[in-house]
């Protein structure tokens, strides 16, 4: 069979050599190990030895001055039989050498172009703004343009402190950050917990307000402006009496038991600058509407100034939230745990009602009771609401 004799790589990094002269002619018989040509490498003159015995069948590359690349087939050797393993055919490099030739990197050599100055990587702008990496990222986040700032850092560099100052002066920001106060955090936590853990259901009832409003007018006529009774005061009283009638709604939910509270302490929602506060009217069932009014005035005032003592807003067995003054017709409120119910009071407004078969105008107020279904069932809630309505529609019973 015919095998190719290749130009060998004889020293590290050698890529080509010279074939100085052939020591054998075409047709000559060569013995394994015999020198058949003289090669010149970067280091020295070397003999090319026959890897196997056989006949030098064909010379492919003549001796000469031109360098020959490593792996180039130089000649064909016809070997006898199968006693010697054949040298792989021309083009063995692909079969043997790996894709990544260890030690030799395929790097593109960048040749410098002499005479031409190298192009600068970045075009220098007329005005280059010096800013620390931190300042840049903070400015980007806050939407502040660096060009508009003067830096206080070394050499006029814009630094973090400058961004901080700029944010303070910025009027037309896309938003204003309001960091959470502790009150906000507590409200958020409690309401999220209540909304997600208490199985709420809602009962709504409409109350005829005419009689109550008339009574209120009457009573208020004889009172100084600062002491006037509000509709809410009557509602608190009505709830207190209704809770006496339906004590299951004046309760506290616990893991092991429901506490049926002996006192009727009602928490009344008041809007304060920081969020909703619920001052408590203690033993409301024993207080008349006027007492309730006086107490609420005082509590609400201090609530708005965040001057309530803990015992004045912690605890209680029932809550009332009134959005009637904002014109809200009806709404549902979230129970304040561990209470088992909360009453959401809407506006008292003129509505058409059916009375004795005819449509008449009357003042109606819608109230929605949120109930904790773990503690109260529908009938109980309805009973309470029904009782509440009776008191509202028969206000003389509230005295």
């Amino acid at each position: 069979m015919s095998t190719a004799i290749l130009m060998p790589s004889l020293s590290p990094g050698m890529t080509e050599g010279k074939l100085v002269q052939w020591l054998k002619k075409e047709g000559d018989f060569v013995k394994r190990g015999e020198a058949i040509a003289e090669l010149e490498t970067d280091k020295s003159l070397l003999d090319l030895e026959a890897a196997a015995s056989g006949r030098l069948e064909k010379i492919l590359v003549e001796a000469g001055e031109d360098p020959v690349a490593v792996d180039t087939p130089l000649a064909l050797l016809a070997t006898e039989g199968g006693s010697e393993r054949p040298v792989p055919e021309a083009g063995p490099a692909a079969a043997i050498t790996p894709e990544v030739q260890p030690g030799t990197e395929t790097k593109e050599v960048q040749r410098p172009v002499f005479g031409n100055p190298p192009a600068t990587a970045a075009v220098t702008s007329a005005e280059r703004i010096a800013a620390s990496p931190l300042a840049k990222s903070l400015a980007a986040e806050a939407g502040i343009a660096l060009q508009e700032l003067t830096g206080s850092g070394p050499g006029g560099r814009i630094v973090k402190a400058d961004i901080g100052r700029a944010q303070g002066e910025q009027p037309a920001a896309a938003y204003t950050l309001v960091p959470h106060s502790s009150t906000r955090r507590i409200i958020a936590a409690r309401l999220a917990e209540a909304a997600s853990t208490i199985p709420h259901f809602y009962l709504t009832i409409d109350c005829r307000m005419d009689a109550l409003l008339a009574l209120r007018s009457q009573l208020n006529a004889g009172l100084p402006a600062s002491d006037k009774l509000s509709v809410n005061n009557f509602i608190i009283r009505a709830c207190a009496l209704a809770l006496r009638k339906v004590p299951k709604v004046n309760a506290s939910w616990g893991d092991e038991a429901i506490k049926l509270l002996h006192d009727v302490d009602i928490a009344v929602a008041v809007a304060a600058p920081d969020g909703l506060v619920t001052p408590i009217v203690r033993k409301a069932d024993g207080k008349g509407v006027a007492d309730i009014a006086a107490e609420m005035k005082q509590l609400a005032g201090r609530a708005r100034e965040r001057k309530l003592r803990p015992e004045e807003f912690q605890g209680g067995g029932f809550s009332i939230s009134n959005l009637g003054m904002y014109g809200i017709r009806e709404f549902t409120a979230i129970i304040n745990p561990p209470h088992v119910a909360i009453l959401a009071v809407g506006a008292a407004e003129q509505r058409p009602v059916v009375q004795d078969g005819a449509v008449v105008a009357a003042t109606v107020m819608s109230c929605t009771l949120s109930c904790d279904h773990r503690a109260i069932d529908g009938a109980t809630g309805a009973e309470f609401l029904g009782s509440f309505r009776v008191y509202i529609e028969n206000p003389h019973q509230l005295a």
Partner: protein
Amino acid sequence: MSAIQHHSQPQPELAVGADQLLHFYRQMLLIRAFEDKVNEAFLRNLVFGTTHLCQGQEAVSVGAIACLRQHDSLTYTYRGHGQVLARGMAPEVAFAEIFGRETGCSRGLGGSMHLADLSLGLLGSFAIVGAGLPVALGAAISAQLDNRGQVAMTFFGDGATNIGAFHETMNMAAVWKLPLIFVCENNLYGEYSPILWTTPYEDLARRAEAYAMPAEIVDGNDVVAVYSASMRATERARAGEGPTFIECKTYRQRGHSRSDPAKYRPAGELDYWLERDPLKQCEARLQSGFAVQQEKFDALRAEVQQQIDTACEAAAEAPWPEVRDLGPESLVEVRA
């Protein structure tokens, strides 16, 4: 405590039986065929960088390593193929390492100059001249501590006897009386320089005297002479009597490395040494001592050639190592 044996006193040969001598012969054939095959493989571009071949020096490896037992250890140089094969590394594994394959003894990470196998006590070949001696010193210290009659052996060339690490190791081995056998392959050239250009005398065994260490000079191409001297040295070491220096006069038939045609040799020198080829000397012993016939030599030669050819082709087909994160190969990962 035995008197220091002077190298100028020739020592008697050990009697070596036919089987053992034939075994030596086959081992030397194996190394010769292996080295020739590596040369051929280089021409096929299977071997990268460079390699250092030891044709002509086979008797030193075979004769000396024959004296080592299972738990002995050895270090050797970048011209170390002979030592690893004599110690029992499979030719295919050695080829695969030289070819840079995953199945090589060092998984392709070391190459020709870093053949090792801890299970055979082959602690490593060292590309830095003389670097293997201190490491063998350490193995000898361990052997002394283990106290089970083990020894360490270190192979080095004539050039290494000029480097600092050699002298420090000789001194410490002598002072601590370590079971370390120094085997110097004096092949008359340190790289391209004949010995007398770099060393004040030719007999390197004289250096042992400076360390009060016994030494012998032997014909490094006579496997029985090497074996005899090595047995004496290893037995002394096992008995706790300390180190010995054995200078083996030999010759490398090829250049220093692959790219060296060794044209610096004086005319006639190579022929002189080819006449004294270790294989030829061994054949002569087998013929005269045990009436072994030429057919036996030819049969063994063919058998060994077949073994080497097969091993080489298998290694040439072996898989390449994966290009991957080699951090774990450098540092052992430690977890709490």
